[in-house]
């Protein structure tokens, strides 16, 4: 089927952001098949609403917004998943580890497996997870993240703060469970 050159050029440009969309969809759905469905649907919708994209603006943010809106439309009803984080109080992993006598960076961060970090991200409620994805994984500014999510910058900052607290708590729990640090105190570093 012959597509118009303008549509093809638009699709080509949109596809340069496929990695970002797929990673985001994968983290949101936590399922490769669902992620592919979501991304495909997002691209089809993007092409259908091509006219609403203003050339020269942030296409990556625009596409991500389409994808995450679809995600929320589709999954909001079916999942009873918590959408907010309880305020569990300040948790600063660095301070916690310091207090317990560990060298936080060398003893702990260097020993965390990538799969555990991903698991900790995926454990976040989706509203908080998506902020981490945008700001930490995709490098969005707070302003771009706010625009993508349709919330004020202050909301991005507070969600990010909560998300990071929760993330650090999960990583700490993992570090304790796996013996990287001992809950009681000293880190278990083989002395050699």
């Amino acid at each position, binding site marked *: 089927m012959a*597509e118009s050159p303008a549509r*093809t050029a638009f*699709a*080509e440009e*949109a*596809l340069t952001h*496929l*990695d970002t969309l*797929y*990673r985001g969809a*994968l*983290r949101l759905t936590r399922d*490769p098949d669902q992620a*592919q469905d979501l*991304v*495909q649907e997002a*691209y*089809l919708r993007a*092409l259908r609403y091509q006219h609403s994209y203003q050339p020269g603006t942030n296409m990556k943010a625009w596409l991500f917004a389409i994808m995450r809106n679809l995600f929320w439309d589709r999954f909001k009803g079916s999942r009873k998943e918590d959408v907010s984080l309880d305020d569990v109080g300040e948790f600063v*992993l*660095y*301070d916690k580890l310091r207090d317990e006598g560990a060298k*936080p*960076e060398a003893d702990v*961060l260097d020993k*965390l497996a*990538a*799969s555990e*970090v*991903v698991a900790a*991200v995926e454990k976040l409620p989706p509203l908080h997870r998506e902020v*981490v*994805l945008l*700001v*930490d*994984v995709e*490098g969005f*500014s*707070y302003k771009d993240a706010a625009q993508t999510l349709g919330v004020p910058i202050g909301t991005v*900052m507070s969600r*990010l*703060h909560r998300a*990071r607290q929760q*993330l*650090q708590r999960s990583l700490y729990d993992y570090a304790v469970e796996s013996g990287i640090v001992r809950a009681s105190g000293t880190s278990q570093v083989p002395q050699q």
Partner: protein
Amino acid sequence: MNCSDCKDKLDRYVDRELNNTEVLELKLHLEGCPPCADHYEFQAHLKRLVKVSCDRDKVPAAFREKLRQILL
């Protein structure tokens, strides 16, 4: 700037969201305060770790091809 101000701004510094004046003030504090500098390194490292860990997932080649077929 004291350590408490520094801590408050650490997230925004790591995320490159401070203005130039704030960045200078914070850098000055970090140079003279090893504990805050160490904390900063930790937060920056953690942010990189999140990115690198999530970046490992690549788009399956078959899916990329399928999308091209559909869209182009």
